[in-house]
């Protein structure tokens, strides 16, 4: 298929959409979370109900990816009114359809957030949960059917690829991404354009693009939801990256524990191949590119880029020292670009709207938006996207609906086992890379674990250390032995058997492990400990005194 053919298809699909005979659409969230709470049965029942009432010509039912408020699933949304019902089950479908469509009187007590808000909104977009968000990466998640390429095409899908292939050189693309000031979303926040430029500059007959979908930080589920909700967006980002750096082969490394994400991404690859969006001479251009999926096998450390590459090569996923960086010598020794899922998902909008547009969102040093996964003791857990620089307070109270059971907010953990906690006195912090570092934490990949006043911080430090101990690959001694020793000491204190000397020893070890570990896992493993010590030292001391 060439460029013209694609445009013809898009026109046809758009026309179809505009002449849509349906008066209503019903979106049924089919993210992994909603599926497990029964959304597939709801979908079936809804289809039956519509058929029975002979409304098939008026109502279209669309299975979609994650809508965000995962805790409230299964969710169904009525368009064009944006009315969302929560915790829907098969037994109340008939009455929902009757009230919403026939009588036009939404059932208030079943609307989204009816159990948290004094008044639930009939138009869910007016609820602070949605109003305070800005969706760029997640834009089509929850609105399109992730298993239909046509749905993506209608929403400007592959428009950026078309633009890149026929109107831009590799240098232009890189300049645009640099201009956007986008930073990698995998955790370290390295400038994306700069990374692309580095790979571009290495001369080699073979280069690779890798998408890092090994998401394993406790509390993180951004990448899973993007892969499940809009796989073509990630694929398009990888294609554009391949064009920019001069690669013709890509690998998407997805966690083995994410079967639905794998299934949907595999389907997307198949569809793209069939349409000529992957393969030789894409859309009739000189650019050829193909993508393979690699499924992980359960090792957190494989998210680290050099370990991930070792894993693709069929080895144990152990990191190696850098340099050389993958950009110079990556997969099978070839220059390799490796970016995170969310990073790739952000590329197409930058190409479509321009780097300037993106750079103006967020804060001067942290451009754009960030997807966060809300978990822990928060009322509305789920997936959100906000401009960089949004305050933690807004996220927890306006978007997240506050703390469960009206308890007090005590702290939020960012950056998972590599990050730290933000205590209540800093709840007004602006969520961007620099501000979080100033508080001794990091942005990390976007997991935001909320803790209430009943959470014991020594215990929190213990479970993060336990995680690092379990996930240490064992290659370097400081990490392998150090995380175990620190874990045992924290546990001793937590169990009320610790001494002052244990605490001193713990602090010494933390510095030592931080400075001497081979990779980021060990180097950052002491962070949750140090951060809880920084803000909640009294809790350690109380436990020691009681001992």
């Amino acid at each position, binding site marked *: 298929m060439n460029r013209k053919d694609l445009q013809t298809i898009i026109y046809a699909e758009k026309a179809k959409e505009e002449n849509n005979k349906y008066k209503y659409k019903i979106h049924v969230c089919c993210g992994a979370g909603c599926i497990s709470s029964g959304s597939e049965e709801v979908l079936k029942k809804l289809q039956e109900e519509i058929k029975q009432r002979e409304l098939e010509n008026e109502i279209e039912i669309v299975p979609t990816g994650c809508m965000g408020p995962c805790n409230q699933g299964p969710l169904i949304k009525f368009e064009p009114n944006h009315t969302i019902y929560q915790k829907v089950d098969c037994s109340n479908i008939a009455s929902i359809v009757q009230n919403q469509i026939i009588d036009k009187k939404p059932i208030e007590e079943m609307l989204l957030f009816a159990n948290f808000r004094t008044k639930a909104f009939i138009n869910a977009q007016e609820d602070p949960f949605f109003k305070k968000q800005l969706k760029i990466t997640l834009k089509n998640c929850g609105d399109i059917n992730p298993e239909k390429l046509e749905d993506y095409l209608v929403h400007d899908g592959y428009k950026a690829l078309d633009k890149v292939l026929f109107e831009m050189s590799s240098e232009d693309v890189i300049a645009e991404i640099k201009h956007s000031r986008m930073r990698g979303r995998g955790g370290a926040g390295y400038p994306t354009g700069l990374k692309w430029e580095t790979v571009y500059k290495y001369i080699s007959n073979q280069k690779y693009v890798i998408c890092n979908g090994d998401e394993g930080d406790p509390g993180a589920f951004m990448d899973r939801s993007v892969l499940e909700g809009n796989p073509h967006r990630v694929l398009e980002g990888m294609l554009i990256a391949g064009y920019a750096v001069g690669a013709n082969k890509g690998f998407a490394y997805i966690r083995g*524990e994410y079967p639905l994400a794998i299934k949907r991404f595999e389907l997307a690859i198949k569809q793209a191949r069939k349409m000529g969006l992957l393969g030789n001479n894409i859309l009739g251009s000189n650019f050829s590119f193909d993508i393979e999926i690699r499924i992980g096998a359960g090792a957190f450390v494989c998210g680290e880029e050099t370990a991930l590459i070792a894993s693709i090569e069929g080895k144990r996923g152990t990191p190696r020292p850098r340099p050389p960086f993958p950009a110079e010598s990556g997969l099978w020794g070839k220059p390799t670009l490796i970016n995170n899922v969310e990073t790739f998902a952000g590329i197409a909008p930058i190409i479509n709207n321009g780097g300037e547009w993106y750079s103006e969102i967020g804060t001067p040093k942290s451009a754009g938006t960030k997807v966060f996964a809300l978990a822990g003791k928060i009322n509305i857990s789920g997936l959100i996207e906000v401009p960089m620089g949004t305050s933690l307070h807004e996220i927890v109270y306006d978007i997240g609906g506050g703390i469960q059971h009206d308890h007090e907010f005590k702290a939020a953990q960012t950056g998972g086992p590599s990050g730290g906690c933000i205590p209540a006195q800093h709840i007004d912090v602006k969520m961007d890379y620099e501000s979080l570092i100033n508080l001794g934490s990091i942005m990390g990949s976007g997991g935001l674990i909320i803790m209430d006043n009943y959470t014991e911080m020594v215990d929190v430090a213990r479970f993060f250390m336990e995680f690092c101990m379990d996930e240490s690959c064992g290659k370097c001694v400081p990490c392998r032995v150090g995380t175990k020793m620190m874990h045992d000491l924290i546990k001793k204190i937590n169990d009320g058997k610790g001494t002052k000397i244990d605490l001193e020893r713990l602090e010494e070890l933390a510095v030592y492990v931080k400075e001497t570990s081979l990779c980021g896992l060990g180097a950052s493993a002491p962070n949750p400990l140090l951060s809880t010590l920084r803000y909640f030292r009294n809790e350690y001391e109380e436990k020691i005194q009681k001992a």
Partner: protein
Amino acid sequence: MGFMKFNEQQLAEFNRLVARYPEGKQKSALLPVLHLAQESFGGWLSEEALNYVAELLQIKPIEVYEVATFYSMYHLKPVGKYVFEVCQTGPCMLRGSDNIIQYIENTLGIKPGETTADGLFTLKTVECLGACGYAPMMQLGKHYREHLTKEKVDAIIEECRKNAAVNN
């Protein structure tokens, strides 16, 4: 079910997996081939199965052992028909996963890593499965089971027993 050899269809899949990688890099297919072997040979990898994979890929058995022991998704012991992979990580713990694990241990009479005598259930504790929005949770086959409570656990066990009875 113990170890056999790949049947024709599985061999075709094996060849497809190997063909994805450049000449001379057939070892790269090791992880996907181990996934395939585990799926094909009853949910776990015996020593024989590991040797067979080494032979197929023309690499040393030690290269296969090294990898199979490193990754937590490869089972080196027989597992039950239903594997409860319960998340034990922080966010799930904050929402009570400890109690759920304890409850499953008591109900089924097994500890993590063990299988019930009737070969039906294996309990496994795992790290964050990226489903913290609906904690506490577990994975069963390809599906998440979320917002776990004792009642839900009972219902899941019941459902598995029923399915097993039907399949027999």
